[in-house]
């Protein structure tokens, strides 16, 4: 899995503090004087970004022991100079916006006391500079004991294959042991070899590259086949062209297969969101026949619960998300029960009235949240284990948060099935939904069951909210943007049927994503809606027609 330096930065510093005392593989052997290191460093204070670029280069060449620490700090926006005496320091990571800075001396790398942020000026970087810093620092990475760090290093150096880098890569490839890194090195060296003068070298390069899936490799090969303005081929040699053509063909074929897989996954992940927002409704609406317009707001509450939990336990983002799940469930469930006890229980058997009342409730809940948290978006952070992508290969990568949401949906769904099928409560719920009078007669406290059922549905809405907080805005309108879809899913699947919601949601998701590349987002959505309308004509009770009376009572 590729991790950008911004994340790795933390570990970096530690790796480095260990190494700092011992010898670091020098880039070019020469013993530098601290004095001219500091002098060079000093030039950064008021240089333009272009100059900074050159300065960084000179620093790197100086081979000073603390170069790596300083440049890493620079990359991570931690390089300052003191306004008073223009002296340069860098600070410990994770102190952005702190009022006092814990200073570290750029030479000794030892703590140099602390000072107020106002007395210091940050030395700024920009994208270009950070790119330079990354490739520069990558060179150090090449010799890291950690294979994954080496891999990242190679990948970063590829982005700028100048003489120096190529040289270093060659050296590395001779001693490299890790297979993944070896392969990466081979590919990048082959890419270089494509520009080689010998047709033979180019051919052998292609024979390596043809097994790659990388887009840039593909581009490079395709470039060989293009004609230059004067009509002659860019690639003079006939054989090389054929080889390239073959390679391009096989790469594109394999890539298209993977992109197909990816689209389907996109569909499933979109679908699982639809399922998640719908199953809660499948219970309140399907089983109880309550058209709960406040369902969206219950999800919103779940999302806000996530936010509050996260604020309550700073520094434990990952854990807080897990904690948030039960919390959100409880919050939304209690709210749901409150709504049920105070309003809905007077309206059973009158689904359309419940629609009106709960619409009122949704207005109130929105305003409530607006009054408490303001209308602004709330930032719910993403735990590190949820961000990033699972790189299955160069052509197919799956983002973790989507993957987790698919898994999460399946888990929630399974749990719900268990509750309904294998617990007393579930039994009671089904009994009441199928024949209230009979259930009463058998001594089931239907009042209690109603409350619990509605609570359950609402609670699941809350859980959906937790997932949504990872995908989209957490603000008072969160619910509004999902309520319609959730109703459509339930109706499409068949009111009162959990499996219906599952299959229906996934189906809608996949179809939508399959269409999108051709029709664009809006038309895809419209198509799905129209298809759904037509489908209901042929099966007026959805994919899995309901068995209970819930859907007929009006």
């Amino acid at each position, binding site marked *: 899995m590729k991790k950008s330096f911004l994340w790795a930065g933390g570990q970096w510093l530690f790796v480095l503090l260990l190494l700092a005392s011992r010898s670091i593989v020098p880039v070019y052997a020469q013993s530098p004087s601290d004095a001219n290191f500091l002098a060079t460093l000093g030039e950064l204070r008021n240089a333009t970004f272009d100059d900074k670029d050159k300065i960084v280069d000179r620093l790197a060449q100086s081979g000073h022991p603390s170069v790596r620490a300083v440049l890493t700090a620079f990359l991570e926006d931690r390089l300052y100079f003191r306004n008073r005496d223009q002296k340069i320091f860098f600070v410990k990571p994770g102190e952005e916006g702190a009022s006092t800075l814990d200073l570290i001396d750029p030479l000794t790398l030892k703590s140099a006391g602390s000072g107020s942020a106002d007395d210091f000026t940050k030395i700024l970087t920009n994208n270009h500079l*950070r790119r330079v810093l*990354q490739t520069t620092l990558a060179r150090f990475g090449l010799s890291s004991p950690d294979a994954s760090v080496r891999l990242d290093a190679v990948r970063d150096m590829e982005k700028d294959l100048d003489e120096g880098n190529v040289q270093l890569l060659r050296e590395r490839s001779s001693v490299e042991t890790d297979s993944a890194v070896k392969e990466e090195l081979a590919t990048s060296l082959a890419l270089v070899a494509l520009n080689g003068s010998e047709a033979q070298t180019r051919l052998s390069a292609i024979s390596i590259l043809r097994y790659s899936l990388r887009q840039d490799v593909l581009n*490079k090969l395709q470039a060989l086949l293009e004609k230059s303005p004067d009509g002659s081929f860019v690639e003079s040699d006939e054989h090389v062209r054929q080889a390239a053509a073959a390679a391009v063909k096989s790469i594109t074929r394999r890539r298209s297969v993977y992109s197909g897989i990816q689209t389907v996954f996109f569909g499933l992940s979109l679908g699982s969101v639809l399922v998640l927002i719908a199953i809660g409704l499948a219970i309140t609406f399907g089983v109880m026949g309550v058209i709960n317009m406040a369902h969206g707001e219950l999800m919103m509450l779940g999302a806000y619960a996530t936010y509050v939990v996260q604020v309550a336990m700073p520094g434990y983002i990952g854990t807080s998300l897990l904690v948030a799940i039960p919390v959100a469930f409880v919050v939304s469930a209690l709210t749901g029960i409150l709504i049920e006890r105070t309003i809905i229980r007077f309206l059973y058997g009158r689904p359309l009235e419940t629609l009106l009342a709960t619409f009122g409730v949704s207005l109130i809940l929105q305003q409530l949240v607006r009054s408490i948290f303001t*209308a602004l978006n709330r930032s719910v952070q*993403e735990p590190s284990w949820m961000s990033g992508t699972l790189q299955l290969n160069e052509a197919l990568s799956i983002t973790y948060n989507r993957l987790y949401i698919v898994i999460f949906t399946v888990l929630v769904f399974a749990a719900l099935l268990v509750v309904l099928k294998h617990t007393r409560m579930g039994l009671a719920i089904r009994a009441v939904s199928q024949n209230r009078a009979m259930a009463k007669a058998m001594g089931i406290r239907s009042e209690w069951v109603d409350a619990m059922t509605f609570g359950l549905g609402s609670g699941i809405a809350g859980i959906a909210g937790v997932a949504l907080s990872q995908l989209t805005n957490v603000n008072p*309108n969160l619910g509004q943007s999902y309520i319609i879809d959730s109703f459509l899913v339930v109706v499409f699947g068949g009111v009162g049927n959990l499996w219906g919601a599952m299959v229906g949601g996934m189906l809608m998701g996949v179809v939508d994503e399959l269409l999108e590349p051709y029709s664009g*987002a809006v038309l895809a959505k419209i198509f799905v809606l129209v298809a759904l309308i037509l489908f209901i004509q042929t099966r007026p009770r959805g994919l899995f027609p309901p068995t209970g009376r819930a859907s007929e009572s009006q």
Partner: protein
Amino acid sequence: MKYKEMRIAGLLLAIGMVFSGMAKAQDTIKVGILHSLSGTMAISETTLKDTDLMMIAEQNKKGGLLGKKLEAVVVDPASDWPLFAEKAQELLENDKVAVVFGCWTSVSRKSVLPVFEKDNGLLFYPVQYEGEESSKNVIYTGAAPNQQAIPAVDYLMTEVGVKRWVLEGTDYVYPRTTNKILEAYLLSKGVKPEDISINYTPFGYSDWQARVSAIKKFGSAGKKTAVVSTINGDANVPFYKELGNQQISAEDIPVVAFSVGEEELSGLDPKPLIGELAAWNYFESINTPENKAFIQQWHAFIKNPKRTTNDPMEASYIGFNLWVKAVQKAGTTDTEKVIAALPGLETPNLTGGMAKVLPNHHITKPVYIGEVRADGQFNVVWKSSGTIPGEAWSRYVPSDKNVVADWVTLKCGNYNKETKKCSGQNYK
């Protein structure tokens, strides 16, 4: 019995609404505030409502205006465009406000425009917008395309060396116009058509998986690629989250946005966005005495030291100060006189330089380009030399070439220099 009482309660509630409170005391100057406090736009507009209230409170501390206190009349158009027109009419005709500060989206402005021109009101519009408009009754204190989009693209082309462009926007008039202008501009700079990809997504679009991977693909063609984003409000958070998750870093494919500022960033975790760009006329991080003071004042007023400031807030601030100056100059709040007094007036920007009202009812603004940094603020990586005058009509759009707006000499917002005609005006 309980029922009976509740029924009566219901009836009373109903009757209660039938009597609306109308005319109030007249010894104050009424200032209308027309920003959505509910609905989808509340996210952005509530802040501006608070800013206006803050400015009014400040002014009253200084003893008000023309010896009268200012009285804010706040209404909620609820992100509902027809309601904007209705509320504007209410403010102008029932409350007889001297001036209105309001609107965010272009459609809300378009919807109130006829009202302001009919009742000859005065609107200060504080948001960057697509141009192609200049009304006698509106002062545009936000950026016109030439004060935001063009410089940003210039920066990417020259400083970053971008060769390939994705113009990604929400499907409404601001992105469409901006992209139209940018496309014309890029082509004029010799960018090949196949190196420009324009795409639009609906409002509140949240499933960016496919789009982002498409951008990734477009960006992997070997040329340096950048995304120029005119994506609106709600859709941004999921967009940036997806960028982060698919690990498109700003070093690979930078995104420059025109509607993502400090406040939008406060709604998401900035770490994955470090280095992403935004072009504005104001950044909270810009260190000037005026800005420091403004930020402190804001924190005190909103009672939250963490609340950010942003560009439209500065635009509101400038708008308010300009109006105050104009009223003092005219010695009355009469709209005709105030409008006449406005062109040429100057007030300091929060980030240095002066905001000057131009004859086309736009103002001069400095342009900054910032990179997102870890604390959700922006590092300014480029600033315009001096201020840039706002252009109502873009020189890059063929149909606008000869059109000028001038309310001082030509008394027209849409004057064609060739045909010498003044078209599309509503006022008599």
